[in-house]
């Protein structure tokens, strides 16, 4: 995925991807976040995750390690933090060529809801994505504006089938971020292994 050069507006180490989503939403950033895991549980190669935003609302997700886009890329982003976060702003329209990749798109609230588990942030994001009365809004496939979704049943926003974010009116059901996470047996095994080692170490420390 080729991204346009952007203006770096934020660079820091964060504990989880939530900060990137909050930052972009608060700043109404049109641009992209690059999230590079720094933690010990590094899978999926050495890649990093990319989430693009339109006025603070996630549009496309991609992972350079797995080369997957869309909701599975959100699952690929899920590792133990911390992450190095870089948030770039671009000129309006600069991401158009990236955003036409339907298969890379994610429903507006999916990253907040499923990747970071913050339903309040997800709701805020969906509201930001919804067309205001008389306005244009960003995309809406969050299942919150059913009328507009029905009318745009085959619009490129209809990705990520199978989670509440994702709408429900297409046969071409795409795997959601949570399912993609659960399908990644290697990652789940790594999480369990790390937890087991931690539990055993602490058992000794705590006298269990």
């Amino acid at each position: 995925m080729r991204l346009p050069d952007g203006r770096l507006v934020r660079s820091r180490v964060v504990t989880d991807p939530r900060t990137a989503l909050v930052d972009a939403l608060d700043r109404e950033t049109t641009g992209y976040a690059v999230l590079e895991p720094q933690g010990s549980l590094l899978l999926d190669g050495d890649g990093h995750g990319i989430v693009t935003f339109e006025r603070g609302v996630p549009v496309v997700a991609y992972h350079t390690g797995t080369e997957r886009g869309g909701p599975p890329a959100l699952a690929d982003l899920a590792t133990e933090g911390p992450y190095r976060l870089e948030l770039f702003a671009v000129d309006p329209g600069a991401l158009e060529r990236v955003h036409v990749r339907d298969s890379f798109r994610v429903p507006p609230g999916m990253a907040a809801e499923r990747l970071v588990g913050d339903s309040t942030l997800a709701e805020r994001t969906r509201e930001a994505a919804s067309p205001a009365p008389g306005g244009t809004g960003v995309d809406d496939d969050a299942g919150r504006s059913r009328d507009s979704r029905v009318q745009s049943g085959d619009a490129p926003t209809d990705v990520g089938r199978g989670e509440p974010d994702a709408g429900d009116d297409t046969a071409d059901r795409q795997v959601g971020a949570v399912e993609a996470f659960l399908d990644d047996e290697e990652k789940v095994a790594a999480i369990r292994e790390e937890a087991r080692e931690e539990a055993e170490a602490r058992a000794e420390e705590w006298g269990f």
Partner: protein
Amino acid sequence: MRTFFTERGTTPPHMVEAFAIASGKGGTGKTTSTLALGMALAEEYDVTVVDADMGMANLLFHADLEAVETTLHDVLVEGGAPVEAAVYERHGLSVVPCGTSLADFASADPTRLRDVVATLAADTDVILLDSAATLSSRAAVLPVVLADRVVVVLEPTIPSLSDGLKVQEYATSYDTGTAGILFNKVRDDDAISQIAPKAERYFEGPTLATVPASEDVRAARRAGRPLLAHAPAAEAAGAYREAARALDVRDGDSGTVADRFRSAVVPESP
């Protein structure tokens, strides 16, 4: 199996099973779930619910116990109150709330929880330990260590599942089994029907129930009452009754009792 027994006078050994209601992450609805499961189980069993989230107690707010004098904190201090003084009968349950004062938490010895649970075990069939939403301290992990099995409360999100898996690994490390998983705050039936079977592959217990996100739950919480008391006909309440039916409470086998509960876990005081 960590079933334990106590003897009182000539009464024969009494068997109980202790469950920790746990999740690695906050906000999954553990306390709501603990009380709802407890009330549903109380239709068949004698149930005692303990607020074992000692650093961030909130069960008292859910069970109309805010005004009570004696709580678990008072029992856990050196020379403190007897357990019986902190047991309250509410909604068909015996409830042991925990206080919310951090100073009281600091002076309480969480490791005494072991004796508290052993004492309570004399008079009940099922003990539910509402556990902390973290695995970062001994006090937080203790309920998982003490329980026979955990019920892992999950939301259908990646961090919740990831933390739930960690809870199970901790439990397994301390020879605590997994009784099942409970999906809470579910807002989409289709998605959960895809997610639950995939999650089950990694958890050692079945999906006990899928509890829908519900205004009834929030209303019950605002009213300071358990869901099954506030809105017994709600769909979410029905889901908890389903979970209780799916939970195979074990009678305990006296051959394996080995009062391991009293002897196995003896951490030093902090």
